[in-house]
């Protein structure tokens, strides 16, 4: 049986939700200036949040890189009890060079550098300084640390070379340059005082005053000779893995494999606890900032929406009078609020993207104010480079919308409670 006119059946009208959405969105633009000012205020807060998060993430990244990749590595292996005193007698109770070579075969180990270390006196002419003497294998080190790239002149001593690498400050104190000779006196493992002559093979600049002024590096084998150690007697193995964030996981795997009676496998978080503390602290600060920015944004939204609702009570009364349910009215206002939050976020993205790009690409150049300073023992600056914190920003955006909706519930319920009877009595104009 066909319909009398032969017309196709009428299309289903837009669902109520879609209509509410449209109404909510358009309501926002009835007072464009007020909407714009509120959106701007929230956008400014969000941009600043992103800016600070970016700088902090960048600083964290740079500090961890500097702290670990410069000399320490992502994790280290020592004899249990070697740290913190670093006694020369506490070398790893296994053939060190062999162990290092074996570790290279493991998953997620991309470099394993064996080292020895002792304290001694370095002198040139009539100047002398107490230093830490490190013995490193140049080829192994290049797989683990970036120190090899920090040389101003020359390089780390090659295998077998009787050369010594000094930091810039140490070289300055002693007044030596490449090729000059220095004397090392150190307490050897057999109790005697080792001493010998070496030529300066390279001068490095790490940026850390403690390293640049207090560390002198010999070739591993040459150092072992000076300190009366056997070739397989090693104090420390520095390891590079996929990334600093993997250090703890890889350390526990290695610890399990190697056993924990005589060896200790420590990730950088344990070796430089100060740095780990700083990372945790800066994360806490960012949460505090979230709360502050959201609180102020919520107040803005609340204020604006209250104004918007109260100047339209008449309308809400009319809607209630013609039969719209309170739930739908609340939905309409909440949509408006959410739309306001979204507009703010869009504005924040448009205005904030260039800022974020600038911070990540060029960074904040503080070199006119400082040459850089150290935090938690790690050099920072003078250029602070940000990180792309897109995931964090997206999260912040969603939290903002949630926050705005919660703030909008009060005005929404007021709108839904506009009594239609009051309309006809002329009490609401």
């Amino acid at each position, binding site marked *: 049986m066909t319909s009398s006119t032969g017309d196709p059946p009428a299309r289903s009208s837009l669902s109520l939700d879609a209509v509410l959405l449209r109404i909510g969105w358009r309501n926002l633009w009835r007072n464009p*200036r*007020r909407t714009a*000012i*509120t959106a*701007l*205020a*929230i956008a*400014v*807060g969000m941009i*600043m949040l992103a800016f*600070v998060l970016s700088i902090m993430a960048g600083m964290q990244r740079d500090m961890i890189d500097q702290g670990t990749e410069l000399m320490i590595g992502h994790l280290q292996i020592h004899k249990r009890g070697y740290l*913190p*005193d670093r*006694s020369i007698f506490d070398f790893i109770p296994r053939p060190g060079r062999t162990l290092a070579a074996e570790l290279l075969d493991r998953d997620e180990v991309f470099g394993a550098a064996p080292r020895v270390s*002792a*304290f*001694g*006196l370095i*002198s040139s*002419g*009539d*100047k*002398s*300084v*107490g*230093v830490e003497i490190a013995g490193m294998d140049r080829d192994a080190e290049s797989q683990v640390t970036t120190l090899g790239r920090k040389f101003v002149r020359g390089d780390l001593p090659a295998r077998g070379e009787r050369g010594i690498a000094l930091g810039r*400050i140490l070289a*300055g*104190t002693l*007044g030596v340059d490449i090729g000059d000779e220095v004397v090392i*006196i*150190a*307490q050897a493992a057999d109790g005697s005082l080792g001493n010998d002559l070496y030529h300066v093979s390279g001068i490095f600049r790490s940026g850390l005053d403690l390293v640049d002024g*207090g560390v002198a590096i010999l070739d591993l084998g040459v150092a072992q000779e000076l300190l009366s150690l056997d070739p397989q007697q090693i104090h420390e193995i520095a390891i590079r893995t996929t990334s600093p964030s993997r250090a703890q996981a890889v350390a526990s795997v290695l610890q399990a494999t190697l056993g924990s009676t005589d060896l200790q496998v420590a990730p950088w978080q344990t070796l430089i*606890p*100060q740095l780990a*503390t*700083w990372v*945790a*602290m800066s994360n*806490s600060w960012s949460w505090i*900032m979230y709360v*502050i*920015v959201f*609180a*102020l*944004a919520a*107040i*803005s939204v609340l*204020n604006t929406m*209250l*104004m918007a609702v109260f100047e339209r009570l008449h309308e809400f009364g009319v809607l209630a009078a013609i039969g719209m349910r309170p739930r739908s009215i609340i939905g309409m206002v909440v949509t408006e609020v959410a739309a306001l939050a979204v507009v703010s976020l869009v504005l924040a993205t448009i205005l904030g993207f260039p800022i974020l790009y600038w911070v990540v690409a060029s960074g904040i150049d503080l070199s006119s*104010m*400082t*040459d850089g*300073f*150290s*935090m*938690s*023992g790690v050099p920072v600056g003078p250029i602070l480079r940000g990180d792309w914190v897109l995931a964090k920003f997206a999260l912040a955006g969603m939290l903002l919308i949630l926050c705005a909706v919660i703030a909008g519930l009060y005005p929404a319920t007021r709108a839904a409670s506009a009594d239609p009877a009051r309309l006809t009595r002329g009490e609401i104009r």
Partner: protein
Amino acid sequence: MNLSLLLRMGWRNLWRHPRRTTLTALAFAIGVFLLIVSLGLGDGMHEKMIETGIRLGSGHVVIEPAGARDTVDELHYLDADAAKAVERILDQAQIRGKVRGAAPRLLASGLLSSANNSTGVQVVGAVPERERGVALLPDKIVSGDFLEEEGRTPSTVIGAALAKKLDVGLGSKVVLMTQAGTEIQSQLLRVRGIFSTGMDDVDLRLVTVRLEDLQAVLHKPGAISHFAVFLDSSADTAAMRDRIEQRIDDSFAGTPPSVLSWQQAMPELHQFIIIDDAGNYLFNGVLLFMVALGVLNTILMAVLERRREFSLLLALGMRPREITVMVMIESMLLTAMGAGVGLVLGWTAHTYFATYGLDLGRLMNQTFSVAGVSVDSVVHSYLYPGRIRWTLTFVALLGFAASLYPAFRAAQTKPSEATQE
């Protein structure tokens, strides 16, 4: 212009919409509160860092041989005559009054060994009576004393961490190896004091002996590496530095010793504080900008919904100028309210934290160091005197700026609109 009328009307206008006014003022109050609290905690932390840096290092003002900083070379000394001349200057009336203490020191670097271990150290030769009451170490002694007891063997004071590393205790013997001239000298020392500052760099590497003992070991009688001058008040730093420098320049023929303020002696610390402050201001400035926009919105709304009334006022003979001023007064009253509440709350919090301190220990369970100075986990709030004044000025400016656009709009009203339907 009848200011009291405008003030009265402006104030009452704010309370026609109590909820709106309260919310806007509340947001502003939060902004100001946060500003004061963060300034207070920031200043407090910086003060502590400066104090530690000064007491651990070379005081508010340091007098050292010219050029000593250009190369990190410990061979720059003030000889005995120069040292005496400096002492005389420090004793002069206009200087002595502001100086709490001046400690002469001799610095050297060497190797300290025990039977079990050895490590590189920085040696400081000091005069215990001159260090007490000003320097940090005498206060941080945990066992023994600070170079007071005499004995056949010269005394030394070392850090707790160093003692543990070398496996020594009170009364133990250690050997110091250092260079005197072209020869390496060994000197036997007895540990008669152990200190603990909580800073690894210091506890592991700093060793103190009596000045005369170190001068003897280095074969340099009377030589001084620097004078660490401690003032009664850090505010006098710049003035005292200038004064001391002038006296020294006058008394010395040839190259006089350099006189440096702590800002010049510890530039890293100084720079960090400046940058940290700037970051703080930036953050709070943006927050206040956010809430100022809220004020703008509120006042603008108030203006736009009162167009009829403004027309009426103009019709009755008020000048547009007076309406503009009334709107500005409204805006500034609103910000003043918010700022007032924020100030009171902020000041309360500041006073509380100044007395009891804020323990960030939950956030930091380790000592944390910046620019070579360790930061205490307990921060006492402190506000440099100009801060409150600056805050008030900034807030007033914000209130004024937020009023500009709405006032401009209000002034555009036409008196003829009073008669329209």
